[in-house]
């Protein structure tokens, strides 16, 4: 509202006119591609097949969490508990597997634990209408407590080969977690775009009151939304357990922030109702390429933090400029 603002918004207009056409459609994808080009030019080995697979493999766990987080944020909510849920489901599935349960059962139990944790989050958020931030801040804390208590605070080594395969194996030279991630994204894409539930998610995020008045079962939908996030955290927990061959009670600390960052980088808005799952995977990849590339470039670890922090802000800023 002051002259300065006007000036700067004026500048953005001219910028807009130059770059707008391509920008509008591709947005964050362009940023990802730019980032890849830079890395390809400067970071040795960046373009090797193996490295590309590495990036995808390393993204997979955050990507799975972020898929659930996308749905939550689309409704205008947030889920801080995904990191802790991941830890708990990993611990439980490994415990059961080691206790002699068939691996599939153990894994399903771990995933089910995540789902159940999500149901509770959903219940408090949707039915008793507590702010999602508080509910999931609470569950973030107590779920990790539970993970520590049942594991005695120590990592549990995973023994079952079949279970390990899901996190550390590969099919046709491509690591299993990449397949799992892809399946998750394809399903979530369809769920969001082609099911009633998905459209209700958007409707609730756009205008919860209106959704209620048109007869959408808002509570039920929201419980499902948090359950999906829990489910994703459960899957991520099991994949993680396989990948690191153990159930770690302290796994996934601050993963919620990575997942949220990816969702927001992917263009999903906190306001609710606006965003796409395709954007999220791009957000995840931006973060992963950055981490991988900076390490390949041998950038000092502390400087990596500075660069990453700045890239988060700059990427969203660039994305903003095109609107």
């Amino acid at each position: 509202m002051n002259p300065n603002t006007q000036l700067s918004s004026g500048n953005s207009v001219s910028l807009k006119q130059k770059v707008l056409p391509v920008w509008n459609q591709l947005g964050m994808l362009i940023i990802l591609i730019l980032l890849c080009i830079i890395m390809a030019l400067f970071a040795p080995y960046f373009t090797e097949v193996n490295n590309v697979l590495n990036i995808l493999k390393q993204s997979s766990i955050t990507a799975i969490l972020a898929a659930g987080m996308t749905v939550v944020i689309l409704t205008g909510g947030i889920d801080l508990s995904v990191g802790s849920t991941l830890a708990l489901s990993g611990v439980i599935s490994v415990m059961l597997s080691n206790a002699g349960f068939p691996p599939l059962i153990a894994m399903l139990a771990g995933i089910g634990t995540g789902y159940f944790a999500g149901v509770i989050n959903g219940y408090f958020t949707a039915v008793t209408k507590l702010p999602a931030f508080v509910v999931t801040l609470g569950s973030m804390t107590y779920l990790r407590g539970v993970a520590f208590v049942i594991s005695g605070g120590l990592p549990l080594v995973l023994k079952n080969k079949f279970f390990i395969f899901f996190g550390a194996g590969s099919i046709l030279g491509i690591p299993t977690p990449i397949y799992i991630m892809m399946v998750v994204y394809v399903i979530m894409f369809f769920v969001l775009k082609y099911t009633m539930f998905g459209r209700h998610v958007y409707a609730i995020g756009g205008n919860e009151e209106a959704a209620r008045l048109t007869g959408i079962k808002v509570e039920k939908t929201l419980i499902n939304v948090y359950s999906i996030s829990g489910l994703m955290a459960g899957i991520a927990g099991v994949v993680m357990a396989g990948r690191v061959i153990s159930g770690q009670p302290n796994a996934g600390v601050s993963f919620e922030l990575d997942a949220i960052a990816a969702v927001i980088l992917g263009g999903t808005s906190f306001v609710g109702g606006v965003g796409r799952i395709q954007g999220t995977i791009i957000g995840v990849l931006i973060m992963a390429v950055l981490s991988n590339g900076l390490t390949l470039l041998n950038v000092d670890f502390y400087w990596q933090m500075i660069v990453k922090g700045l890239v988060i802000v700059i990427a969203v800023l660039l994305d903003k400029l095109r609107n």
Partner: protein
Amino acid sequence: MEAIHKSFSGVQVLRNINLELRKGEVHALMGENGAGKSTLMKIMAGIYRPDSGRIIYKGEEMAWHSPLEARGKGISVIHQEISLSPNLTIGENILMGTKFPKNKLGLVQWDEIFKKTKIVLESIGSDLNPKLRVSELSVAQQQIVEIARALSFNSEVLIMDEPTASLTDKEIDKLFVIINDLREKGVAIVYISHRMDEIFKISDRCTILRDGQWISSHPIAETNPEQLVKQMVGRDLNDLFQKKFSPLVTPQGEPVLELIDVCDKGIVKNISLKIYPGEIVGLAGLVGAGRTELIRAIFGISKMTSGVIKLNGKPVNIKSPIEAMKHGIAHVPESRKEQGLFPNLSVKENMIMNQMHLYRKGGVLQYASMNAEINKYMKDLGVRAASIEQNVMGLSGGNQQKIVIARWLSIGPKVLLLDEPTRGVDVGAKTEIHKIICELAEKGLAVLMVSSELPEILGVSDRILVMHEGKLKAELSKEEATQEKIMYFATGEIKK
């Protein structure tokens, strides 16, 4: 509906209400802001459950468990507050809450959605593209989507809660054609509106509520506006407000506000106008004509791309509301809720917000010293509130609107821009607001008033400007202006 009672957190909102709705009738439901009309309808449609009382539908007692259930049985609602999801397409919004067309795999078929909703839209004479997002629509277009949605259910009972609040006469006429059509098909319609002319035009019977109580029901033919108003407000309104017929004051001296060839980034086109002190200039036009955009450009909210604004003959460059304020321009925005009120604050703070700096001592706010000024406005504008410390959301719409007006009077403006100053305000309050506007003008204020209600424009303005597609199409004096003339220019049919 029989003996309906309802209270919210201990406050009784409906007491012993009876309402009988017949097949093939248009039943007007009337009452002041807060009388309980919407609440009663929400009970009828299964959104709220009554504390006691019975709903008898087609001879059977019903207890709705959800809006879905009521709708399934044939009761649909056009809500007063627009209840669309702005981020979704028109098509989705129309079908929202129903089962979407799906293919064998259970996946939603988008083509079908758009095809189906295109038909619904066309049936009410709208050519809106169902693939558009609702957020891109004007308020009026959204209202049309809302109507289309309600009609898409083939209901037996249709509740319309102020469907015309943001429509102009052209759309209203279109709507009335649809209503008549539905009536003939035997649909029972509840019609809520604060606009008296509509009630007499469209309805068969009416029911009047006051303070949550049933007052009367009778055929519309057996009553008249004065009687209805009396029943609604519970007292005689010393006649509906009529501006004192002042002999035409030929504007004298310099105009306070002058616009020369004002354009914005595409909506407002080459607007030139003058407003003299003491004058109320009405700005009429169809929805989307660009009136709000013009007001926003004057007030520095949106940017002018060319043209000049002069205040008292001097060109000014207004780039923000703050600068507009400094030049003595006040602006009562179109939407109280979104642009006017601070829902979390008291009446007092809402009123004083842009003048707080006057009540500081050494940077410290002196709340007590604000009271005199505030009480003055409370009295002058006749604001009915329990206390000035009360939260503003506890007031009726009309009183909220007065508070927004008071906020702007407190800067001692030279120019007052009013955008739909009485939208959704009941008759009583509307009259009072009109009176206030005229009194202000008498004191020398220059007023530019946008309104979509022709009676309001005709009743209050000294001079009427008509906009069409961003351009000024006509200037009519109070004497020559009629509803027909205004509509003639507003629709852009300039082939005399």
